[in-house]
């Protein structure tokens, strides 16, 4: 085997990687022993092997799945139970309909039905900080109420301290929302100066989730605002907004402590609304 200034590194590499057969490996080792320069080079080559470094994934528990029997196994029983309830209901209804109505024979006056005012199904508890901003937000296709389609939206007041708890469970809408906050808000906030008053609005615009900042015309602001930041937010939204219809997010500064920045995040959608205080470690 001929050693040259071009191939010696490759031979050391082959030895290190275990690519040489026993005979050639022994030959290379002998050459190394004879030459001080090669010894130094071999020592350095051995140091290029990355040493095992234990790293712990802190959100492991959130990834685990229940190991019990799957609920789906009971679904046929539910179906039969529902059919039974339906049959009984129809039978009971027919019995009631066919029964002689004694009350009709009397002269009792007909009572007027009590009509209750319809409850407002959705409240958007936006913080004062956010509500006080002079937003000229383009109105969505309708208000939160008529987005609702009869489903009652869930209203949540919560405080989330980021980077403390693992959140990843797409079976639960609360968790999806928390995950959204976790994924999107740092993207929104990381590009914004620490001193300026901040309010960010993320809302559908021309088929994509777009972001407006502060209190000027949102459309112009979207066009002018930092494109890369918007792209990151859009990515975060696209990843997590699947379950929500007409989602809108407003983020505003809620306070500042020595080690933390706090933001109000007001989220509205047809299915879910919330006002969350999120604290970020500085």
């Amino acid at each position, binding site marked *: 085997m001929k050693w040259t200034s071009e191939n010696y590194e490759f031979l050391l*590499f082959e030895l290190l990687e275990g690519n040489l057969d026993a005979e050639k490996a022994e030959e290379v080792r002998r050459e190394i022993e004879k030459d001080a320069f090669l010894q130094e080079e071999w020592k350095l*080559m051995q140091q290029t092997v990355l040493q095992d470094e234990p790293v712990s994934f802190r959100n492991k528990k959130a990834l685990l799945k229940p190991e019990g029997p799957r609920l789906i196994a009971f679904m046929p029983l539910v179906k039969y139970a529902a059919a039974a309830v339906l049959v009984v209901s129809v039978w009971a209804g027919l019995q009631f309909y066919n029964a002689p109505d004694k009350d009709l024979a009397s002269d009792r006056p007909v009572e007027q039905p009590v009509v209750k005012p319809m409850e407002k199904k959705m409240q958007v508890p936006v913080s004062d900080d956010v509500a006080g901003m002079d937003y000229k937000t383009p109105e969505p296709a309708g208000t939160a109420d008529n987005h609702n389609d009869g489903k009652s939206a869930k209203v949540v007041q919560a405080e989330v301290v980021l980077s403390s708890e693992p959140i990843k469970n797409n079976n639960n809408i609360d968790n999806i929302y928390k995950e959204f906050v976790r994924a999107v808000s740092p993207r929104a906030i*990381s590009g914004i100066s620490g001193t300026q008053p901040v309010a960010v609005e993320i809302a559908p615009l021309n088929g994509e989730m777009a972001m407006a900042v502060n209190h000027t015309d949102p459309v112009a602001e979207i066009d002018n605002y*930092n494109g890369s930041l918007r792209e*990151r937010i859009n990515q975060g939204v696209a990843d997590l907004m699947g379950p929500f219809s007409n989602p809108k997010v407003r983020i505003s500064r809620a306070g500042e402590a020595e080690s933390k920045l706090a933001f109000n995040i007001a989220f509205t959608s047809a299915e879910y609304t919330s006002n969350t205080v999120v604290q970020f470690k500085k």
Partner: protein
Amino acid sequence: MTPKKYNQCVNDYSDALFRFVVKNLKDEFEAENIVQNTFEKLWVRRDSVDERTVKSFLFKVAYNNMIDVIRKRKQIVNLEDVPENVREYSTEYTGIKEQIDLAVARLPENQRTVVMLRDYEGYDYRAIGEITGMTESQVKINIFRARKFLKSYLSRLEVLL
């Protein structure tokens, strides 16, 4: 794959997967997202993924996600938007391991990936090729170039010290 076996995979591989991604991206937040997405994909496809190759499946999915993130970063070249949780590396000399970490961070992405899979996970060239989409010879040459760079980096350090 039963939920029990899936959970076993989480326990066995999530740390290694996280290390692989976070060492490449140097962004813990993004790395956590990728690991979570990777295991979600495994859960969704648990009936079709071969249990014998589940580790390779996980690394392949994570690698592809990671490449997407790196490509996006390349498109978004804006120094003002550096994420908060990007790790800062000290430039002071602290030890050989730290210096290797510094040098690894300077490797091109394809070299860094293959050398990590080789040294941390003990994969052979063929398995690394399956994860990264490279041929075996491309894997080998990238590992060689990575080691050559690391060796040269260490040798310069020795001269300085």
